[in-house]
């Protein structure tokens, strides 16, 4: 039973000399996300650093890190080619144990385009907060459904080109601020990739509406992505999202159906996937067999 204070690991070589140093935006399970700049200090970008995991056997760790960085970058490049909204990839280093990197404790990194906005998770949490205070619940619900519809459509497009995300959660869906959106950049630090607003309901409502209705859905985190055209894999992908959604936003479970509805309407093959999803749902262990 050890407790310790969190200290982020050292960044690998090219970034130790970056001025100003990259700022840590969020700590995911597998990676740390930094905001830094690319070539010019005015050009913001996101740096995803996967430090090696001390708990894993070094061989297994190197194998997983390399595989995940490469497949993530390849998937994102492919998706962009197909016209889907994902951050553009700017550079990668996936060999954890070469040169200076080995000294720094391994790991690998990928640099990509910066997305200005917030995660769907933060947005939905903000909606939940606002819902309590604003008294216009039905309007908000409708706007959430609007967003869910766009999410469903983009997921269907992704599956159509044979990409399985592998870790669909509301944290992995970014909502990019609309062009006319007065976003909260003040001193060069964006609230993007960041936390929910904690201001009171009435003021945040127009901002929320803008994000819900006009925000562009950008898929991020393809660390567990695979290629497949199997209905089974697509259905499991949706199931992962459904479950994550249910456990994170139990209050908005009704609106989630809009994701599946839009998904089903977006392509001819999608209905078969939804049918398969019904089977997948029954498969989790210890499910009651009613219905």
């Amino acid at each position: 039973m050890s407790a310790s204070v969190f200290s982020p690991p050292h960044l690998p070589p090219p970034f130790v000399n970056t001025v100003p140093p990259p700022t840590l935006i969020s700590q995911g399970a597998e990676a740390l996300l930094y905001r830094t700049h690319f070539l010019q200090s005015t050009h913001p970008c996101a740096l995803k650093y996967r430090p090696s995991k001390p708990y894993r056997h070094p061989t297994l760790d190197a194998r997983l890190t390399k595989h995940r960085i490469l497949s993530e970058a390849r998937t994102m490049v492919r998706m962009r080619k197909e016209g889907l909204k994902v951050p553009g990839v700017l550079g990668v280093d996936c060999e954890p144990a070469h040169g200076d990197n080995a000294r720094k404790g391994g790991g690998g990194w990928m640099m990509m385009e910066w997305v200005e906005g917030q995660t769907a998770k933060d947005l939905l949490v903000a909606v939940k907060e606002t819902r309590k205070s604003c008294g216009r619940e039905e309007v908000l619900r409708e706007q959430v459904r609007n967003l869910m519809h766009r999410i469903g459509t983009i997921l269907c497009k992704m599956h159509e080109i044979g990409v399985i995300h592998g870790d669909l959660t509301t944290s992995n869906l970014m909502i990019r601020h609309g062009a006319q959106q007065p976003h909260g950049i003040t001193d060069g630090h964006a609230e993007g990739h960041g936390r929910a607003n904690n201001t009171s309901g009435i003021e945040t409502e127009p901002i929320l509406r803008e994000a819900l209705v006009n925000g562009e859905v950008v898929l991020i985190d393809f660390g567990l992505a695979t290629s497949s055209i199997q209905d089974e894999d697509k259905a499991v992908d949706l199931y992962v999202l459904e479950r994550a959604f249910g456990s994170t936003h139990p209050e908005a479970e009704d609106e989630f159906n809009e994701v599946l509805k839009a998904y089903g309407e977006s392509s001819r093959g999608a209905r078969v996937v939804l049918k398969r999803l019904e089977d997948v749902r029954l498969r989790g262990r210890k499910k009651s067999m009613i219905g």
Partner: protein
Amino acid sequence: MIALGLEGSANKLGVGLILHPPKGGPAQILANIRHTFISPPGEGFLPKDTAKHHRAWVVRLVKQAMKEANVSVDDVNCICYTKGPGMGAPLQSVAVAARMLSLLWGKELVGVNHCVGHIEMGREITGAQNPVVLYVSGGNTQVIAYASQRYRIFGEALDIAVGNCLDRFARTLNISNDPAPGYNIEQMAKKGKNLLDLPYAVKGMDCSFSGILATVDSLAAKLEQDTTGCRDETTGEIITHEDLCFSLQETVFAMLVEITERAMAHVGSSQVLIVGGVGCNERLQEMMGMMASARGGSVFATDERFCIDNGIMIAHAGLLAYRTGFTTSLEESTCTQRFRTDEVLVKWRD
């Protein structure tokens, strides 16, 4: 208030007596005894034999527990038993025993979810406030976090449980089931050093173990056939059974730690509590500890008295529910093999 707990969802029969002091404060364990049905090497425990074992031992264990705790029948407030999930036949035999005691002593029955029992006991013993829970045993593999009166399942095994994967591999190698197959695998793994390539199957916060078992089983079969010895590709050393156990543990535990970390990142928690039989494994605890401290958090784990199925956890969780006014009538005192952790309304937490 005092509760008697009866647990028998798998091959362990447990009887426990717990006291919740009237003025609050930590629960007192008055008795916690267990008897395990151990099958011969190479075999698992069959439901009918396990049920027979439980029927043969339950009266003896209850008597012994009452004696150890030094309490009389009048002191007991309620009889708690495992309603599910678990194996049908053993669950039924223990439910019958619970009903019998309830009628004999004139005490109320409380049906308890086995998984919730593990979680509540883990929280009580370790003092973890609101941790992400990794529940790993022979029948269950779940990553759980509490939210609005439910223990919600964030990730789980899509096919066999992790403990089942280890137990079945122990059978493949003909390792003894005494005291537990997982324990013996852990001891062998300590001597292994070559990491073999096994599938790594994480899907979001879920994971799958059946493919890993099939692969490691076939590697074991290959070792059997090749009398000259299979050599590791990188080190050139002869691969041993110990290496297989080591590789299996390293792979499946890395998967478990990864999905736990993902759930922690997702809910923003830095505490993790490991419960269930596999939770005794010191390597798993060590790996989880490294992950948690890298996140600035801590890991909570219990020893075999509370990790492995026991009666005290059923008594504890049952008493928590009983104190909120929950009872199970005789007509409803059934048991079920399928009982999701998130089906239970957790009335005793905020």
